[in-house]
C-alpha cells in the first residue's frame, strides 16, 4: 500500500540531512525555548524566518510542500483564535503567539523531514532506561503503518459485504484491530526470540 512517508526527504543529500539527529534535536529544543522567551517585537522574529528559508533551500525540500504541511495546524489555531476573540483579549498578543507557533512548527517539521526516524530513535538505545523507550518508538513507527493497512483492509471487506461502516461498525473494527494486534504481538515475540532477542530485565 502507498503511504505518505514522513521522512522521505531525509534520503536527499542536503545540509541538514548530514547532521547527526541528536545534535539537530538539541538545537531544535534550544530554538523552541528561545521562541518561548522572544519579546513581542517583530524585529526579533525576522532573522528566524530568514534562517528557515535558507535551511529549506539548502536541504532540498520543496517550499510549496513545506508550506502545505504547515497548514495542518490552522484548525487548532482557529479554535484558540475564536476563544481569544470571545475573551476580548488583546489581538496583537494573539498574533505574536501565532507567529511563535508557526515558527516552532516550521522548525519541528524541518527536523522531522530531514531526519531518518530510525536513526533518531537510536539516540535512546544506549541510555540507562532508554532501551524500552527505543523499543516502544521502533514498534510505534513500524507497526502504525501495518495496523493502518489492516484497518483499511477490514474496512474494504466490510464495504464489499454490503455494510456501510457506521459508528458501531467502526468500534467493532477498532476492537478487531486490537485483538489482531494482541495476536500479532505474540507472533512478533516468537519471531524476536527466534532471531536472538534475549528476555532480560
Amino acid at each position, binding site marked *: 500500500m502507498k503511504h505518505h512517508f514522513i521522512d522521505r526527504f531525509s534520503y536527499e543529500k542536503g545540509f541538514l540531512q548530514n547532521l547527526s539527529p541528536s545534535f539537530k534535536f538539541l538545537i531544535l529544543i534550544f530554538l523552541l525555548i528561545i521562541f518561548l522567551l522572544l519579546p513581542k517585537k517583530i524585529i526579533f522574529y525576522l532573522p528566524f524566518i530568514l534562517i528557515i528559508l535558507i535551511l529549506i533551500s539548502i536541504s532540498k525540500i520543496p517550499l510549496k510542500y513545506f508550506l502545505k504541511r504547515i497548514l495542518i495546524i490552522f484548525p*487548532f489555531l482557529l*479554535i484558540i483564535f475564536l476563544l481569544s476573540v470571545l475573551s476580548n483579549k488583546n489581538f496583537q498578543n494573539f498574533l505574536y503567539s501565532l507567529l511563535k507557533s508557526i515558527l516552532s512548527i516550521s522548525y519541528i517539521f524541518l527536523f522531522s523531514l530531514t531526519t531518518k526516524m530510525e536513526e533518531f530513535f537510536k539516540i535512546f538505545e544506549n541510555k540507562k532506561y532508554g532501551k*524500552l523507550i527505543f523499543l516502544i518508538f521502533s514498534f510505534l513507527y513500524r507497526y502504525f503503518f501495518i*495496523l493502518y493497512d489492516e484497518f483499511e483492509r477490514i474496512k474494504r471487506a466490510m464495504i464489499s459485504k454490503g455494510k456501510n461502516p457506521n459508528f458501531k461498525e467502526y468500534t467493532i473494527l*477498532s476492537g478487531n484491530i486490537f*485483538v489482531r494486534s494482541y495476536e500479532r504481538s505474540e507472533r512478533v515475540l516468537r519471531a524476536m526470540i527466534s532471531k536472538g532477542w534475549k528476555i532480560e530485565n
Partner: protein
Amino acid sequence: MHIPDGFLDFKVVSGTNLFSFLTLIYSLKRILKKLKPERVPLLGISCAFIFLIQAISFPVPYGTSVHLSGIFLISLILGPFSSFFLSFFTLFLSAIILGHGGILTIGANSFNLSFIGGIFCFYIYKFLEKILPKIKYFLIFFISFLSIILGSIFCTFFLSISGKISFSKSILPMVISHTVAGIVEGIFVVLTIKFFEKVKPEILKIEKI
C-alpha cells in the same frame, strides 16, 4: 485538544513539563520493575494502536466526524502507568511527524490527555467500581466522557493562565464543543470492552501496571 507550541508561557511550560517528566520517570521505573519482558511487543503494538485510534476519524451522526483518544481504554487493558507511558510517546511522535500538539507543550498535553485519561480516571473508575459494581458499563461510559471533558477544562485553564484566553468566557464553549467527542469516546470504550469480553476475554486479564 492538543495545544500547539507558542501559546503557553514559560511558567506553564516549565511547571507542566516538570510534572509530566517526573510522572514519566516514575511510570518507566514501575514498568521496568513489574513488566514481564514477554509483554514488550504488546506494549509497543498497543502504542501503535493508540496512534491509529487518534489518527482515524470516526463518523458520527449529522455528517461530522471526531477522533478518539483511546487512552482510558488502554489504561483499562494495560494499566494506568503503561497507558501514561505509551500515550506520552504517541503525543511526542504526533507532535514531531503530524504537527498535532507541540514539543514544549508536551507537558501540558500529556497532563490533559495522558495523566487525566490514563492515571486519574483509572483510579476513579477502580474506586467507583468497588462501590457500584452493578453499573459497571455506565461507569466506563461516564468516566471516558469525564476524561475528555476534564482534559478540555484543563486545556482552557492552561491557556488562560498563559494570558491567551479568559477562563470564565471560554470554559462553556470549550466544554460544549468537547461534549460530542466525550459521548462518542464513552460509547466507543463501552462497546470495545464488551467486544473483548465476547471475543477475547484474556485481553482484559492482562496484568495492569
